[in-house]
């Protein structure tokens, strides 16, 4: 397709992830944006336009959150857009930034993702209940965990996947998170399978150590056109493919054992990147992992495993960070191991792929040789898939 510009990633930055941050949402945006600009070797004057993402306004109790965040995101006096696709927002933010530059209209874009879940009282979970249908679902006394527990049970029982397998995903990601500088206190750790299996049953089959926490945090990435990026000394990382897709809101009419919308988003991104065999051409992956089962579910949707086979590959160490022959999945630690400030968590996954490709992931650096990586997020009523592929 005739895009005007190829788009490069020039730098990334995060804040720490925390259960409750002293910093306001604007301050978190500023901190993440500052680090990303420094990493790119640019200042705000080099930035042509700004994109921000943040999940429901109800968390903050601030309406028009895009405008509220704008000053902290560096958008004063610049073309600015907030996009929002629920939990898929973090990855979608980079897609939004991508088309600003791919269009040929801008040379640089600062993309900022922020989430502060802690303000909502008595618990931010309450703010999520409004995602359910107000006539046919909310009067039943819904809570957010239901929908995931229902999906997990359908996936688990469709293939006969044992609970231990899901505990292994949590164990892997929480161990990986120990090496992440943003990891939320108490979330990363070296947990035994027994610890995880014995953790509190919240909404069976979902247990406490197999679900990501409530978090505050922010992240940012700087994007540029190829002719801008080539003027800089460091070799850039390229955005090679983007994809996004939305399934029906009638979620009780879908078979939840398989995320079709993730497959459609992935196919769109693979086609753009010229990838015919993703298992050969994707070398590191950050699938969205707010729940342990979700990592496996998404790896199948991304076509990196056959349907029902991601658990078996897990048992073989195929998704481990130090694998030589597999595809390392969630080397960052993910939402289970670093934390889940929703929009910022997707940004953290994008930043991880960028750092992995730059060889800057430090103790988290994967062992195998990598030229291309993929980050994916998902959200709304389990219906949106967002995918970005980066390459050297």
């Amino acid at each position: 397709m005739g895009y005007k510009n190829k788009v490069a990633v020039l730098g990334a930055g995060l804040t720490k992830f925390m259960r409750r941050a002293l910093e306001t949402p604007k301050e978190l945006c500023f901190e993440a944006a500052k680090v990303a600009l420094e990493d790119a070797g640019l200042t705000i004057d080099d930035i042509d336009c700004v994109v921000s993402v943040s999940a429901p306004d109800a968390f903050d109790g601030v309406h028009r959150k895009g405008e509220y965040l704008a000053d902290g995101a560096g958008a004063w006096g610049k073309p600015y857009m907030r996009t929002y696709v629920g939990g898929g927002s973090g990855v979608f933010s980079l897609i939004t930034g991508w088309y600003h530059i791919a269009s040929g209209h801008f040379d640089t874009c600062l993309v900022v993702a922020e989430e502060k879940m802690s303000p909502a009282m008595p618990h931010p979970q309450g703010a999520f209940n409004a995602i359910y249908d107000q006539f046919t679902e909310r009067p039943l006394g819904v809570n957010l965990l239901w929908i995931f527990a229902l999906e997990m049970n359908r996936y688990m029982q469709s293939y006969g996947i044992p609970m231990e397998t899901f505990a292994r995903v949590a164990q892997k990601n929480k161990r990986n998170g120990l090496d992440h500088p943003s990891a939320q206190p108490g979330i990363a750790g070296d947990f035994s399978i027994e610890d995880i299996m014995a953790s509190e049953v919240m909404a069976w089959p979902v247990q406490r150590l197999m679900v990501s926490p409530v978090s505050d945090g922010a992240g940012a990435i700087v994007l540029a056109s190829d002719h801008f990026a080539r003027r800089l000394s460091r070799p850039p990382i390229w955005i090679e493919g983007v994809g996004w897709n939305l399934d029906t809101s009638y979620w009780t009419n879908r078979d939840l054992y398989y995320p079709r919308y993730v497959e459609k988003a992935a196919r769109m991104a693979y086609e753009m990147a010229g990838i015919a065999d993703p298992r050969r051409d994707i070398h590191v992956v950050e699938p969205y992992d707010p729940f342990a089962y979700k990592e496996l579910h998404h790896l199948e949707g991304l076509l990196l495993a056959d349907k029902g086979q991601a658990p078996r590959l897990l048992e073989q160490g195929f998704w481990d960070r130090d694998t030589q022959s597999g595809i390392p999945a969630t080397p960052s630690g993910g939402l289970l191991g670093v934390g889940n400030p929703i929009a910022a968590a997707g940004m953290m996954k994008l930043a991880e792929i960028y750092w992995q490709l730059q060889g800057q992931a430090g103790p988290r650096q994967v062992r195998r040789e990598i030229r291309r990586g993929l980050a994916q997020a998902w959200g709304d009523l389990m219906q949106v898939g967002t995918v970005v592929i980066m390459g050297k």
Partner: protein
Amino acid sequence: MKPFSGTSLTDHAVSTGEALVSFWHVKAHYHWDTGMAIGTYLAGLKQGKILGIHCSGCRRTLVPPRAFCELCFRPLDDWVGLEDTGKINTYSISYVNWDATRRQTPEVPAVIEIDGASPGMGILHLLGEVGDTLEEITGRLKLGMPVQAVWKPAEEREGAITDIRYFRPIVGEVSNLPLLSP
């Protein structure tokens, strides 16, 4: 890589006033018009009936009903009376309330595929008479198991999804979801 910034607050710092916080209480009330399709569906529930709607384009019978087919993108008005029985598509056993407080006796939400609608057409509802403990409930319930609506008495129905109290297993009938072969 330099350490990232961020100042973590403890619950203690907030509850003791060591960290200053500001409060706001939302006073928001809504009333929603039920629309062309859901209004009819809710009126049906008040009569003790589950109504679906048929699309002559894709030949699906849909529930919850809708005024248009999202696949064929055409208007729908071919109402179909469905059974008040169905099969468990998936279920959960929830110990968490809406505000994340915990409950001793679990709720058992489920997606129930309604008989008379096309395969896979489920609605969200609750299961009842399925046991009180995790072991009892998981031991008893199977995906694919037939269930039947337990209605409120006619005089208590108000045209709401809660006019069905819950669905209960149909005693004596057992059915299992066949495992998918990967």
